[in-house]
């Protein structure tokens, strides 16, 4: 990853917006990351195993493929900085938080193991930040706002944007706290910088997520649990 090679940049995917490299986190923080990741993965496997339906498997494959590709597409934000989509919120909107965690584990794990993007020691923390937190936060915000569809026709798309933006900020917040506890950078220094730049990156995440949800609403609203008329199918199971 490019973080190991500052200087002349090759064409193509730069480093990632939130992938922590080895060396940034202390051993206790990295270990704690693996513990939280392990628990989340175990529960996610169990929950997905229980709830898996005919659409879950193909949609997991599609979400993983799309998020991996989207994570390569760094977009410019202010001041010679780039960012890219994380995707956890979108995955959770489409699949629910547990299957989304499996998707994000596959994406972030493969990036570390095959592409040397994000450290191996800090892999647990990276999955927690970019996959577990984004999935839960994105899912929660989306479902908090979407019921407003009774009053605002565009509530589903607005909910998707908000879910994605908040999920990026929470991931940046968690990453910052891990850097602080690891004694890598003081709270008053790293926190405003991280939240500031990721407030901009989150706009990109929000726009892509909202576009993807709009695309699904137009083509396959059933995937989002919405009838063609636009009415939300709350609690309707077949």
């Amino acid at each position, binding site marked *: 990853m490019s973080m190991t090679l500052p200087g002349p940049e090759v064409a193509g995917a730069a480093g990632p917006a939130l992938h922590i490299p080895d060396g940034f986190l202390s051993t206790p923080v990295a270990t704690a990351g693996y513990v939280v990741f392990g628990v989340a993965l175990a529960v996610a496997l169990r929950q997905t195993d229980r709830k898996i339906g005919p659409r879950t498997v193909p949609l997991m494959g599609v979400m*993983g493929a799309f998020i991996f590709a989207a994570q390569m597409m760094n977009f410019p934000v202010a001041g010679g900085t780039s960012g890219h989509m994380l995707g956890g919120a979108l995955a959770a909107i489409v699949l629910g938080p547990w299957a989304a965690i499996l998707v994000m584990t596959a994406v972030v794990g493969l990036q570390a193991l095959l592409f040397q993007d994000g450290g191996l020691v800090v892999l647990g923390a990276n999955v927690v930040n970019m996959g577990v937190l984004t999935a839960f936060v994105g899912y929660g915000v989306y479902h908090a706002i979407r019921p407003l569809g009774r009053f605002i026709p565009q509530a589903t798309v607005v909910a998707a944007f908000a879910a994605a933006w908040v999920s990026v900020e929470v991931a940046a917040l968690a990453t910052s706290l891990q850097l602080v506890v690891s004694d890598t950078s003081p709270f008053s220094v790293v926190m405003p910088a991280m939240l500031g730049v990721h407030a901009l990156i989150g706009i990109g995440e929000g726009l892509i997520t909202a576009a993807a949800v709009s695309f699904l609403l137009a083509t396959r609203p059933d995937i989002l649990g919405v009838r063609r008329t636009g009415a939300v199918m709350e609690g309707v199971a077949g």
Partner: protein
Amino acid sequence: MIPQRRYLGILIAGIGIALIVTLFSPWASSHPDGLERVAEDKEFIDRAEAEPKYEVIPDYQFPGVDNERVATVLAGITGVIAVAAILLGAGMFLSRGRDDAEPSSLTAGGG
């Protein structure tokens, strides 16, 4: 579980979209990303370990390909197919022995 036809279409279309996205990856911004920018500005970038313990496809450049843009796209295609294969394999394992089209598919999304 073999995906039913109405989901097989999603699978092909979705992975197709992902592969198309990778074709544009050579033109992604190469500026430092959010965390990297903060690490440089706040002067803790040096804490990053300089050398990976091993390399397979470092920097999203498929090894042995001279053209950087081609190498980036090949790396992207490799990743897209690998992630999809891992998740389809894991999903088929989790759904083993359950090939009925249960309507719980709607609640799986939490709707």
